[in-house]
């Protein structure tokens, strides 16, 4: 059962401190959302969990520090879906999903049967079998998002960090992606997603971590975190928060004065 723990984590990019004194523990079977305004440090915190930026404090995956863990070992434990959909070469969908098996392969080795089976499972879970022969750079934004998610799922890591997986997706595709992430968490994975859409975050996440100017200012269930007071102090907006079923919906009314 995987867990990711942050102990007083700080991250500086150049001379600017982007994350300050962040502490939290994420456990398996949870879909956790990291929310906050633009430039709050959400993506930097996610990147720190993958040792992609240097940090102070301790970040542990299970009991091992990410800063000293071999990259391939960390990659086998935590899969990552980076922000954006940039692909530098026009690979086929199947070839792209295959990249997810890289942490399990030695240099110059071939894809084995176990890798092939993992690729097929990822393709099935993301429901992209019909796209497998297509060139990934020629897909629509929604199709490409599912394909990139399948690539991350093909790692078959116990934890997945997705950085803005809903960016530039229409509501239908947003629901598809969130359903998929939610399903992974229900199946026992730890899923951490950096999100901007607060209603989507509230609808699907078990837990939200609200960040403001690099500091975690609230951590709890969506109803605990998405309060009008928090939204006012962090986003600078007046918002109406209503319960729709079990989750809150957020309507921004305007800039708070």
């Amino acid at each position, binding site marked *: 059962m995987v867990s990711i723990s942050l102990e007083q984590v700080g991250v500086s990019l150049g001379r600017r401190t982007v994350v300050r004194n962040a502490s939290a523990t994420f456990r398996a079977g949870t879909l956790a959302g990291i929310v906050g305004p633009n430039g709050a440090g959400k993506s930097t915190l996610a990147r720190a969990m993958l040792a992609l930026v240097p940090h102070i404090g301790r970040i542990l995956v299970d009991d091992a520090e990410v800063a000293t863990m071999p990259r391939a070992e960390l990659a086998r434990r935590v899969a990552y879906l*980076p922000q954006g959909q940039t692909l*530098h070469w026009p690979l086929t969908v199947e070839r792209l999903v295959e990249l997810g098996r890289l942490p399990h392969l030695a240099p110059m080795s071939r894809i084995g049967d176990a890798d092939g089976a993992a690729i097929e499972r990822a393709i099935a879970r993301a429901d992209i079998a019909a796209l497998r022969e297509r060139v990934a750079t020629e897909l629509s934004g929604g199709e490409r998002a599912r394909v990139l998610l399948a690539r991350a799922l093909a790692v078959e890591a116990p934890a997945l960090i997705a950085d803005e997986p809903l960016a530039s997706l229409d509501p239908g595709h947003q629901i598809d992606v969130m359903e998929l992430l939610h399903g992974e968490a229900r199946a026992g994975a730890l899923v951490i997603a950096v999100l901007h859409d607060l209603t989507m975050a509230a609808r699907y996440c078990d837990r939200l971590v609200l960040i403001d100017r690099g500091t975690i200012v609230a951590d709890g269930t969506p109803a605990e975190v998405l309060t009008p007071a928090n939204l006012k102090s962090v986003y600078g907006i007046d918002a109406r928060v209503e319960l729709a079923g079990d989750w809150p919906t957020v309507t921004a009314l305007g800039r708070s004065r």
Partner: protein
Amino acid sequence: MTISRPLLIAGLIALTLAAAIGSILFGPVHLSLARMIAAFTGHGDRIATTILLELRLPRMLLGLGVGAMLGLAGAALQGYLRNPLAEPSVLGTSNAASLGAVAALYFGLAALHPVVLPVLAVLGALLSLAGLSALAGRSESPLTLILAGIAIATLATAGVSLALNLSPNPFAAMEIMTWLLGSLENRSFEHVWIAYPCIAIGGLLLLWDGRALDALTLGEDGAQALGVDLRRTRIRLLLGTAIGVGGAVAVSGAIGFIGLIVPHLVRPLTDRSPSAILVPSAIGGAALLTFADVAVRLIDTRNELKLGVVTAFLGVPVFLIHLMRERRLW
């Protein structure tokens, strides 16, 4: 038009064999097939044996080795820098190797022993690597590396120009110019023994990171999150390019465009992933350079046609085709 990998490799090997046979068959002196067979079986006359074993055979081997290295380095650099216009000169390696060789010619060191020029060329390439590392620092950005490479290439080219400018006499300048045009003429097995170990080491280093190059399709963060150690990948890639291309340029002179055009020629026949074009680019480079070297011998010109000139002309139609495709004219 993707074709199966075994078929592609087999086709390219067949092309390379044809080029290699052409390189043995054709030359300024016509040799009958019977004389050639006799020379290869140890029963030939002295002239035929000398021409075949001491001139055409090393020339063929160098054509194959140098072409393979340039093609492979171009493919690896295009993958690493995620830039289809990358080639060995983008890192300044081949320019620095040229400067080393030009220094050997300028100071008259090349006359001391045939190995001095290639050795200085390899040293030039290795020095450029040190300069590149110092300029690019720890940044993993391809742009930083390209900028550092352009700085090295510009400096090396300026050094070559200075040598030409200050050359002590017209003959020295002519010697430098002739070398810069690139050729495999009059090369011996000494050149083979210098180039091949460099090409073997460089080639292995470049082939090692095929999967890392594929992962870079997702960008630097994406690749690192898949377990790729970008720092080590970069060290292997730069070392492989410096040693391999340095060794190749050391014996052939400055031969451009092979590293640029061969990956473009083979990419449409593969699944377009960077790792899939490495080996085909090496074999294709061997075939193309050897064919170009045969063409140099067959095209009748008043002055000797240089290999670097032919490869430069080969680059033009390839890029015109790409331009037409980009503009959807073809």
